[in-house]
């Protein structure tokens, strides 16, 4: 989650943008499909929200140029929540009263959660490009919520599915570096393993980052009889632990996260890195649609797109495609279409699972082969 400086200059221009849209809005009000765009468009986190507005504009401009969908033009209703939950409820109410058909947003998890209560009552679907809190989809409270970004626990989920489902491990040691990122991931991994009941967590511990030597914990892994280690943390400790395990002749599998999926890990651990698994973001840089979307942004706005631009682009495409396939803006039909029809987006071919998480978005498993990370198919 990085902030982009250019967004600040852009948000000065935003009021002008609003007026422009408000005027086109009244002109087309007769019969349009109203797409609400909610998120942080002002304040500290505007740089997370504004790229989604631009993404929606680009997609909609494209669609309208080709005659719209279901014979209607698409109109954007842009509302700001400044990433604040208390403002997000107002934003949501406003969108409902302006008769939005569907919403692309919100941006921040907290604001999204606050707004979802209102959308649920109004039977409105919301597709977020960036809200990563796992509970939003997993709690099952918001059946009308979808997202085009992987949730915070997606890496842990992938690691566990891979270790238990693909590698068929029965005994797993879960280690972390006591940091927010590593420990959070490790706790999710432990929860998933225990919930699946197909494997057993034989060791769950934090190691001291930067310690001189990890031989004691390596002995403990061996003693625990673990067939594989799931490690949450970064590459310096991971390379030490892996090297010491291999030096002691242990063949225990090592599975880690995108903190380890780093070329430095391979350089430092050298031949001991071979065979190590790590999850990392799916590579979208070669996707022609992503390249095209980025180019369109450069052409229209004269700058590189900001955070979550591609996610928002995909979300808008998915929404419009679903309305087209459902031949209606009725929530139940659109939700069904979102779940059943694949759509080509800059993030790849996606559709949504029963809980609302995008299938085909997020992380992939990589393995070190001959000194490089190769995606495991």
């Amino acid at each position, binding site marked *: 989650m990085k902030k982009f400086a250019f967004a600040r200059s852009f948000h000065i221009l935003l009021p002008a943008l609003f007026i422009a849209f408000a005027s086109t809005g009244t002109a087309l009000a007769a019969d349009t499909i109203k797409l609400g765009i909610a998120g942080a468009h002002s304040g500290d986190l505007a740089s997370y929200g504004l790229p989604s507005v631009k993404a929606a504009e680009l997609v909609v401009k494209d669609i309208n140029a080709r005659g719209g969908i279901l014979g209607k033009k698409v109109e954007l209703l842009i509302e700001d929540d400044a990433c604040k939950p208390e403002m997000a409820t107002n934003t949501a109410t406003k969108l409902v009263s302006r008769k939005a058909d569907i919403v692309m947003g919100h941006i921040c998890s907290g604001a999204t959660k606050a707004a979802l209560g209102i959308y649920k009552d109004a039977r409105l679907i919301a597709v977020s490009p960036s809200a990563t809190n796992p509970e939003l989809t997993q709690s099952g409270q918001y059946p009308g919520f979808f997202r085009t970004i992987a949730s915070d626990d997606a890496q842990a989920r992938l690691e566990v599915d891979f270790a238990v489902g693909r590698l068929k491990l029965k005994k797993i040691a879960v280690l972390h570096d006591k940091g927010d990122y590593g420990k959070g991931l490790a706790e999710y991994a432990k929860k998933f393993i225990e919930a699946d009941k197909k494997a057993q967590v034989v060791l769950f511990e934090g190691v001291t980052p930067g310690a001189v030597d990890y*031989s004691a914990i390596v002995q403990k892994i061996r003693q625990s009889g673990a067939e594989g280690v799931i490690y949450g943390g970064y590459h310096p400790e991971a390379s030490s632990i892996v090297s010491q395990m291999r030096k002691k002749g242990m063949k225990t599998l090592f599975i880690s996260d995108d903190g380890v999926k780093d070329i430095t890990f391979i350089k*430092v651990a050298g031949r001991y890195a071979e065979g190590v698994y790590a999850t990392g973001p799916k590579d979208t840089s070669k996707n022609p649609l992503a390249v095209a979307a980025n180019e369109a942004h450069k052409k229209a706005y004269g700058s590189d797109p900001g955070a979550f631009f591609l996610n928002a682009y995909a979300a808008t495409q998915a929404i419009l495609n679903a309305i087209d396939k459902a031949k209606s803006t009725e929530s139940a039909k659109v939700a069904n279409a979102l779940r059943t029809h694949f759509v080509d987006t800059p993030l790849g071919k996606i559709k949504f699972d029963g809980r609302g998480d995008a299938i085909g978005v997020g992380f992939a498993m990589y393995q070190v082969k001959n000194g490089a990370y190769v995606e495991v198919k």
Partner: protein
Amino acid sequence: MDYFLELFVGGLTLGSIYALIALGYTMVYGIIELINFAHGEIYMIGAFTALILSSVLAMAGMSGPAVLVLASVVAVLYSACYGFTVEKIAYKPLRRAPRLSPLISAIGMSIFLQNYVMLAQTSDFLPFPSLLPDLDFIRDSIPFIGPTELIIVLVTAAIMVLLTLLIKFTRMGKAMRATAQDRNMAMLVGVNVNRVISQTFIIGSALAAVGGVLIASHIGRINFYIGFIAGIKAFTAAVLGGIGSIPGAVLGALVLGWTESFATGYVSSDYEDVFAFALLVVILIFRPAGLLGRATTQKV
């Protein structure tokens, strides 16, 4: 029982590593009552020198034990030069200053050396070649100890014996002991105190460099920051054993290494440092001068 032995050996290795660095702290403290915070950085510089040299030698086509010996010798000499220079620049001008001044100077030197290496080399972790020979027959005959671990323990033990002999039986050692007891009196009987202090720094730095080479090739990675963490642990070991005492530093380091190893093995690695430092507090409560330290009476 095997598990216990493995943890015991792990702790012994870790303790030996700490001991090599702790000796430098304790020798300097014994002679001029200064905590040389830059000592950890000398250890780091030793490791970097060995890395650079072994890369050059590997490019020149050399391999095996020859690289290890050459790299270690150069690292030791180079670090000894650093130790000597650091003392001349940062501590000697402050010989008569209040005790806090050289301490601050030492901290400054430590930060300077860290940043100097970071800028001159890199802030990333670098892979360190495993220079120690991989003696596989050891793994087969003694299952619970790895070859590199065995080498570290043996080298440390040998250095300890040599150091003790040096201090007990040579003229230099005698001069060191005299300076440690009473610097002014030593000067009066004709000991060249400045030279003794320089010698102490040179020996301490050489030991740290040996530690640097051994540990770096055991762990397989270095960066500019490794000296800080190892230095803190070694300093703790020196205090635990009684700072100023050479056998104390070794004992303290071993106790610390075993505590960490067993705490990780039998309790949880989450509490590794908690146990290590709780032990330090307990020992200092009952033996304020450390395990083997002599209680010094304040001279009035």
